[in-house]
């Protein structure tokens, strides 16, 4: 799969004269095409530091832009705008405005780890995608994407009880992401299963929603995890300067 790179050149910066003669030579049309130079001055010099401080982004500085990640990428094969190599470049350059053009698709990384396997520099591009999606959400550039709502609901259950029950994860996610349980394909799937199952098994499935699986004596592990998560949360906010913003907002009323 060849890389179909996004164009860095905006159409309005491409200048072409329909009729142009220079020193008696006709250079009309595309013979006279030139690209208007642009000067970028609004670099976000903190962006790389902030993203590399979030989980998964630690090794972004190793990237030498070979493009193996984009070339291997599952999502890039479906949508050529999904371009990890290019985003890593933008982050390292501090070109925030350019990155924000793609802000609504970065969360779509499916963690297939083809990039991480292909990367010759151990950048862990999969982790960089997750760190970038978190950064965008924490900075208020995007709403919390569905995948993050799912991750959080799932993890919350694991932290609380040590295990998950997939029926509960599903219902919890659909309600938090504002989706209906009443979708024809979902109903058809469940109905197809129910038709084949004997009554005893259906009863057992039903009971699982009341007697949720959990790990015994999980209390101390839960407390340890929750303490760690809270600590990390504070660190993250300090790193991104978010507490400062909140304080300022409060001061401004």
């Amino acid at each position, binding site marked *: 799969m060849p890389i179909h790179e996004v164009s860095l050149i905006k159409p309005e910066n491409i200048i072409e004269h329909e009729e142009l003669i220079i020193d008696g030579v006709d250079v009309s049309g595309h013979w006279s095409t030139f690209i208007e130079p642009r000067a970028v001055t609004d670099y976000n010099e903190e962006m790389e530091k902030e993203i590399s401080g979030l*989980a*998964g982004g630690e090794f972004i500085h190793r990237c030498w832009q070979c493009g193996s990640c984009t070339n291997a990428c*599952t*999502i890039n094969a*479906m949508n050529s705008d999904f371009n990890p190599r290019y985003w890593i470049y933008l982050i390292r350059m501090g070109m925030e405005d350019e990155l924000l053009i793609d802000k609504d698709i970065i969360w*779509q990384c*499916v*963690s*297939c*780890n*083809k990039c*991480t*396997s292909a990367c010759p520099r151990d950048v862990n591009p999969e*982790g960089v995608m*997750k760190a970038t999606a978190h950064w965008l959400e924490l900075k208020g550039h995007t709403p919390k*994407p*569905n*995948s*993050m*709502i*799912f*991750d*959080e609901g*799932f*993890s919350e259950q*694991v932290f609380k009880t*040590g*295990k*998950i*029950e*997939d*029926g509960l994860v*599903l219902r919890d*996610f*659909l309600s938090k*992401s504002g989706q209906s349980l009443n979708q024809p*394909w979902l109903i*058809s*799937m469940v109905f*197809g*299963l129910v038709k*084949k*199952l*004997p009554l005893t*098994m259906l009863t057992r499935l039903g009971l*699982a929603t009341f007697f949720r*699986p959990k*790990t*015994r*004596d*999980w209390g*101390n*592990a839960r*407390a*340890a*995890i929750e*303490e*760690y*998560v809270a600590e*990390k949360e504070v660190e993250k906010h300090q790193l991104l300067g978010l507490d400062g913003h909140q304080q300022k907002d409060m001061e401004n009323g």
Partner: protein
Amino acid sequence: MSSSKDETVAYYPGCALEGTAQSYDRSTKAIGKALGLKMKEIDNWNCCGAMEVKNIDPKLQTYLSARNLSIAEDMGFKKVMAPCNGCYHNLKKAEFDLANDPKSVEVNARLSKKAGHKTYEPGKVETIHALDWIKDSVGEQGIKDKVKGGLKGLKIANYYGCMYTRPRHIFPEKDQGENSESIDKPHYMDDLLDAAGAESVEYPLKTSCCGGAHTLSDSDTSTKLVLNLLQAAEACGADVIATECPTCHTGLEMHQIRAEKVFGKKTNVKILYFTQLLGIAMGLSPRKVGVHENFGDALPLLKDKGLV
């Protein structure tokens, strides 16, 4: 890596095998019994972190996985067998991180201490997949010896998914010579099912992604990825896609239905766990290996082929 037939392995089913993938749990236990292999479930295990906890914090996932490894060690086991690709991957990842990343070691030690159990140290137990378990202990010959009717006439596309081979550095035992598993072109499932009499087709998408991580949160992407896998399997002439991961398996089944209902694209290839197929080859009844617990209905095909 070699396993003797007599060694009892620690069994780590994971959450999916207690929930949507009960048929994988049932069929794994059934074929283990039929092959004379021994396993014992890890006491009071917890979720390995699946594909979600790492997105909150990868070191928490390492801790969650390591807790299970430490219990297996305490129980006196040398090997932990996980049939779920996600669990298998996470236990392997924990093993790798604890051997190579000081920060993971630090967080694991801190959390283990507070939680009140032993801190797991790398190298104490080895994590293997259900495929390794069967391939290394009884192998193709062991399957051939036990096969009753076999899977004659059944064409299978073997689908390994992402987490069985990627990222490559957490699987140091793969790509180590002739009998080891291959990272780029895995073949253990092909080998075992061929030994059971099936015909494994050349399936170029065996390690492609089904979009399982976003199966609900980005359904359209998952449906497109799955549809691609299903159509490719049919183009390769397969009647069945054999799976070895509950996330892939459920994703394939769900999005096969969704592709038909939402995109109007119908496919007929059936989806079965490789353990279900091995069980049927050894003469176990479809019910024994949980064929009725799958979302799709593979029974008519199996009857059609004269396999049950």
